[in-house]
């Protein structure tokens, strides 16, 4: 009886401690975000940001565009086989465009971005921490949050929405290749149905808002995990994994919440 009681007490204590740890980590991450993101960038800051735009954005372009192409092609193929049963294959353009703009482009681009750029950011910042580069920067009188973290954070925040636009454009073109060129859907109805049904604010605008939210969350998780890790090889490996796992879960969870608000009438 005594041991049963002490077991549950220990479990509750553990749960409480985990809760406190989680709150503390969230608080640290919040302060971290504020200290890194708020402030006027210097001329050197702009140069570092541009450099990171290349590293984070341009180098993610290939994987995002190729994935967009395949996803657009698969969407058209799957959509066609269903729509043709109802004689509605002329609505293929509308289906491909809405699926991509509202859901697939922001979500899949964010997941790919977390895997390609997010993990790289965590590993890079983590290795800089493990080799005392961040500490030495502090001792030189340069704030690593401004010098190392801020350009990466802003580069991620700006580049993911642009990548998402690229993903949608290439995906729609992939849908066109399969639907129109291969399966013989009438080209005029592919484009005109799309134009008639896609609303700029509701569909494109909401997709971009989703993408901006995912960009902030994924990049925030990536740079924070890198900055906050235990500076050992095991610590870097764990943090890199955490970046991909947390980012993916956050993107999928937030996607549901945002979709419910934007399209679910909440």
């Amino acid at each position, binding site marked *: 009886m005594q041991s049963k009681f002490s077991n549950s007490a220990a479990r509750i204590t553990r749960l409480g401690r985990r809760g406190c740890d989680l709150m503390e980590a969230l608080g640290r991450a919040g302060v971290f975000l504020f200290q890194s993101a708020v402030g006027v960038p210097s001329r050197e800051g702009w140069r570092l940001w541009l450099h990171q735009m290349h590293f984070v954005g341009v180098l993610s372009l290939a994987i995002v565009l190729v994935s967009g192409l395949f996803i657009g092609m698969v969407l058209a193929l799957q959509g066609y086989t269903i729509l043709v049963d109802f004689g509605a294959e002329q609505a293929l353009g509308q289906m491909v465009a809405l699926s991509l703009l509202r859901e697939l482009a922001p979500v899949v681009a964010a997941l790919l971005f977390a895997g390609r750029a997010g993990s790289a950011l965590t590993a890079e910042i983590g290795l800089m921490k493990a080799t005392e580069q961040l500490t*030495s920067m502090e001792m030189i009188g340069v704030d690593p949050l401004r010098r190392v973290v801020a350009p990466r954070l802003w580069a991620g925040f700006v580049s993911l929405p642009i990548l998402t636009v690229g993903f949608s454009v290439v995906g729609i073109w992939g849908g066109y290749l399969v639907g129109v060129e291969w399966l013989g859907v009438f080209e005029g109805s592919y484009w005109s149905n799309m134009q008639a049904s896609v609303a700029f604010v509701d569909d494109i605008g909401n997709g971009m808002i989703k993408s901006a939210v995912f960009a902030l969350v994924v990049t925030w998780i990536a740079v924070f995990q890198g900055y906050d890790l235990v500076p050992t090889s095991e610590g870097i490996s764990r943090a890199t994994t955490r970046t991909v796992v947390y980012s993916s879960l956050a993107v999928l969870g937030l996607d549901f919440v945002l979709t419910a608000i934007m399209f679910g009438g909440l």
Partner: protein
Amino acid sequence: MTDAPFIEIEELYFSRGDHEIFRGVNMTIPRGKVTAIMGPSGTGKTTLLKLIGGQLTPESGRILIDGQDVHKLSRKALFTLRKRMGMLFQSGALFSDLDVFENVAFPLRVHTDLPNTMVRDLVLLKLQSVGLRGARHLTPAELSGGMARRVALARAVALDPELILYDEPFVGQDPISMGVLVQLIKRLNQALQLTSVVVSHDIKETLSIADYLYLIADGQVVAHGTPQTLDTNEDPRVSQFIHGEPDGPVPFHYPAEAFYRDILGDAPMIQIG
């Protein structure tokens, strides 16, 4: 130059988790001299440097650098104070995405508006003083451990700081690089009138350059004085460290339960013979 001490550490307490690292440390580091802080591994020498640099915050007590309480400064003021300090890290901690030249130029580029030609001249002067002017185009990955530390030293003095903190500068160096570093630290201190704090457990080298020594063990200062006074100190803790005796007040064995119990468990002891 005033005679007031450059760093004053008063009643410093610091722990990591349940492990007490400092229990009331007091130190005075004179201006323009080389002060060595020595002690066995694990006594928190590097932690002390991080406390001086404001990277860690003590539980109680205070550290004054040139009259300013390091841990009461705002983040901005702390970074301003750090411009007056240089620190040489054990690993060198060079920026891996910059070459040797840019590593040394880094503090000049971020803290001054000097034209490129002047930055170039200053960097070459600093690299010349550590003997690595010819290595300016190498990347940190191409340097040996000793060279990396010399480049880091050139970077640490790039802004002509008033204080320089050396974290175990002699660890893992071959005798030649060791000799070079000893000479460099001595020469830099004399030429630039720096205040230097050397944290080390390499007795011979440290005694040869230090003007004043602090020995820390068990979270406290156990002795301090000039190299000559410490050499003749009869405190067993001081003498064990200075003369490198393997066993003494600092035990050879890490605390553990009785050896026979660890090996044999609870089996009764058997008398033989």
